């Protein structure tokens, strides 16, 4: 039963991300549904399924070629790794500020990794001249803002059903 539920959940998140990208213009299409979901999973306490989520979500982005193959996968892995380390070692309390810091940190790490890997590959090709750093910075700021608001929103919903003491 849990497998079926997981498949439905993953499919819904992928559908939502696809719908957002196709429905809306900038900046709304930057809402990182997948990243918000992953951060919340880390915040709640990661389990074995996280490995498969990284692979599935990372591979989903790789299908669309907006970065060199592997950039999104590696960025997702690093983000989850860093996020989890912080969640287990520093941001151990399940409060709103903790999840907001986690969201900020994770979205920063993810975008820096994607841009970093893209640049490493692009520097060897003539397309490096066309990379707009101001554009990358604006995208990053919007993404961080959406991640923070998104995780805060989900935290609000989750908080209504759970108490902090349940951890």
């Amino acid at each position, binding site marked *: 039963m849990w497998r079926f539920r997981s498949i439905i959940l993953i499919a819904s998140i*992928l*559908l939502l*991300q*696809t*719908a*957002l*990208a*196709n*429905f*809306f*213009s*900038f*900046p709304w*299409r*930057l*809402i*990182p549904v997948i990243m918000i979901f992953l951060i919340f999973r880390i915040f709640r306490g*990661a389990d*074995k399924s*996280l*490995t498969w989520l*990284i*692979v599935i979500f*990372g*591979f*989903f*982005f*790789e*299908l*669309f*070629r*907006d*970065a060199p*193959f*592997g950039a*999104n*996968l*590696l960025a997702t*892995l690093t983000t*989850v*790794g860093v996020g*989890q*380390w912080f969640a*287990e*070692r520093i941001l151990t309390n399940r409060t709103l500020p903790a999840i907001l810091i986690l969201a900020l940190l994770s979205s920063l790490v993810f*975008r820096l990794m*994607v841009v970093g890997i893209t640049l490493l590959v692009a520097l060897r090709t003539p*397309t490096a001249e*066309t*990379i*707009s750093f101001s*554009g*990358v910075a*604006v*995208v990053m700021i919007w*993404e961080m803002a959406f991640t923070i608001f998104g995780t805060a929103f989900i935290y609000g919903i989750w908080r209504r059903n759970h108490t902090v003491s349940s951890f």
Partner: protein
Amino acid sequence: MYCYLFYVKCYPNMRRRVVFSAIIILLLIGAHALGWLKPIERGALYVISPVSRFFYNVGISLKGRTRWLEARKNLEKNLDSLTDDNARLRQALVDADLLRQENFELRRLLNFTTSTLRTGIAAAILGRTPSGAANLLIADRGKNSGVTKGSPVVAAYGVLVGIVEDVQDDTAYIRLLSDGQSKVAATTLGRSQSLGIVSGGFGLALRLDLIPQNEEIHERDLIITSGLEDAIPKGLIIGEIEAIQKEPFAPFQHARVKPATTYETVRNILILPSLGR
């Protein structure tokens, strides 16, 4: 009980998970480089494409409705502007017809054969890339249909909408002109040399930069490709100048360009073969 991962203190479970994920990811990258993932990628895109196309078309319908409401407000203003445009274009059509006849006669006299006729590959848009950071459209034609990287992509009436960024067997990824990484050499209609570079910004606007200070440009001048790049022919319509930004002591002037078509609502495109020199 702690362990160390890359000299960082962590929990054993976490290390196992990260190492396991890293191994899977490295295997995936290797398999992709060797081309072993092609059937899986094609299968995944085969499943995702109809979903993406559905959302894309619904998005276009919704945007069309809001645009219609906005357009109603400016109906009178638009009518005046379109009447002016119509008169101007009729005159331009007459001039172009005369020039075409003259050109034909001159070519005949020189015994010159025309070689500019090029056929494009018609394609439909499947949707946008989901990450949102890049402004890429996915087209339903790829290598198997003869699409090549760097080819210009036009919408109705020869309006340039973007450049092919990447090609797979059955899909092509088109970077829209309005993307921050898009750059195309452009000029105004009637000018023989390149005037500046048209670049995009977040999928929202186009700018014409690097226009020398001594060049005279006007609002509503038609902006076309200058043919400076190897792959892009001269004369593809980009848009018209909406506003000019000119500082007295700056080396270059800038202009805001109004695109000739709405990139957000493009459904069908024509991929022109890359010229190459």
